[in-house]
């Protein structure tokens, strides 16, 4: 199961010709929203994703069962920024259960493997795994509290 917005992105990629997919990834890279000031001033509030080949950070906030995502990756790493842009567009605002049910396999059906090499796709599932873990930790903390 994928949230509708992510499902739509996956379909767009899957149905586009190869060269177009690269352009689309670049568009997501360019469209990645900048960090809000509260994170820009406190980088330790973000979690580093070690599986990505470049410095990459993710932050998660949950308000009224809606998950909001924040990413930071340098401009000289457009591929990683592109992954973040896809996850931001596809998952931001989804519910807690939608996030937790998102299968990491979606990256494989986007046709990106032949562009970026299957090995480099792992960064995407690693980011998703961190997001899920933060969601679990935060919802548990709320339930306990």
């Amino acid at each position, binding site marked *: 199961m994928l949230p509708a917005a992510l499902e739509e992105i996956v379909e767009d990629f899957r149905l586009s010709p190869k060269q177009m997919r*690269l*352009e689309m*990834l*670049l568009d997501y*890279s360019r469209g990645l929203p900048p960090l809000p000031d509260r994170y820009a001033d406190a980088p330790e509030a973000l979690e580093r994703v*070690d*599986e*990505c*080949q*470049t*410095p990459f950070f993710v932050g998660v906030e949950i308000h009224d069962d809606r998950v909001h995502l924040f990413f930071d990756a340098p*401009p*000289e*790493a*457009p*591929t*990683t920024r*592109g992954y973040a842009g896809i996850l931001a567009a596809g998952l931001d605002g989804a519910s807690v259960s939608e996030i937790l049910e998102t299968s990491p396999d979606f990256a494989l059906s986007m046709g990106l493997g*032949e*562009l*970026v*090499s299957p*090995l*480099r796709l*792992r*960064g995407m599932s*690693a980011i998703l795994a961190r997001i899920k873990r933060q969601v679990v930790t935060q919802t548990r903390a709320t339930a306990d509290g």
Partner: protein
Amino acid sequence: MPAPLDNDQKLARYAHPERLVTTAWLAEHARDPGIVIAESDEDVLLYETGHIPGAVKIDWHADLNDQLTRDYVDAEGFARLMSSKGIARDTTVVLYGDNFNWWAAYALWVCSLFGHADVRLLDGGRQRWTAEGRPMTTEVPTPTPTEYPVVPRDDTTIRAFKDDVLAHIGTGPLVDVRSPGEYSGELTHMADYPQEGALRAGHIPTAHSVPWRRAANDDGTFRPLDELQAIYLEELGIRPGDDVVAYCRIGERSSHTWFVLTHLLGLPNVRNYDGSWVEWGNAVRVPIERPGYPTPASGAAA
């Protein structure tokens, strides 16, 4: 017709100065006929965000590797690739890229497997070009296809396979160019890089650890000749006639060292083991050395 050489003084001291150009030379000659500039990066999207005006893109994964077998493209595939990039057999190819020219050196090494005569690296690569504020563009050129000949790949001269490396143990210098943690077996991959699946950690017996980065200055350029000689000839004890093999994890960082040993120091018999640790660390019954474990018998295959 080959492009003129860069007469820069630092380059002139290397054994094969014709294999390097400076950013200043490239800025002057970028539009010369007979030259094709090609960018080869780690990040598959970096070229699209901006590149040296006129440069084409060569992707290490999609263009240089066979998509089914773990191998490089064959002679027909290479000829198709060169033709599509507007490169003729006598074209001067100037390669540059991100990350200290790893993938540019890798592309240069692959071009050398097919005997392309005039292929050069931009000293300092993309990092130096952008640090100097030189022009970049997102405009992608549309090269006129060439009649590039179908030339067989020579896998015997500058390429080593696993069995070659087994036979090489104990007979000549073996250079492990990975990070110290990978060499000692604490890691099977670079820090901060994706785990690319080696089941065992350590290094090939007798290999010396000389991380590739020691050959580079912080600005991405190669260190001057005397400093390279101090590392590889004096410290490591490589003699000019030695048969040398370099390896890393998948063959990209060792392409950088292969370039240093072959073209900057002028060693005639250097091979790159492109199978590298991702093959060795998964192969059954090949000897591995690792601190805290018994040293395998020299040259033993099992």
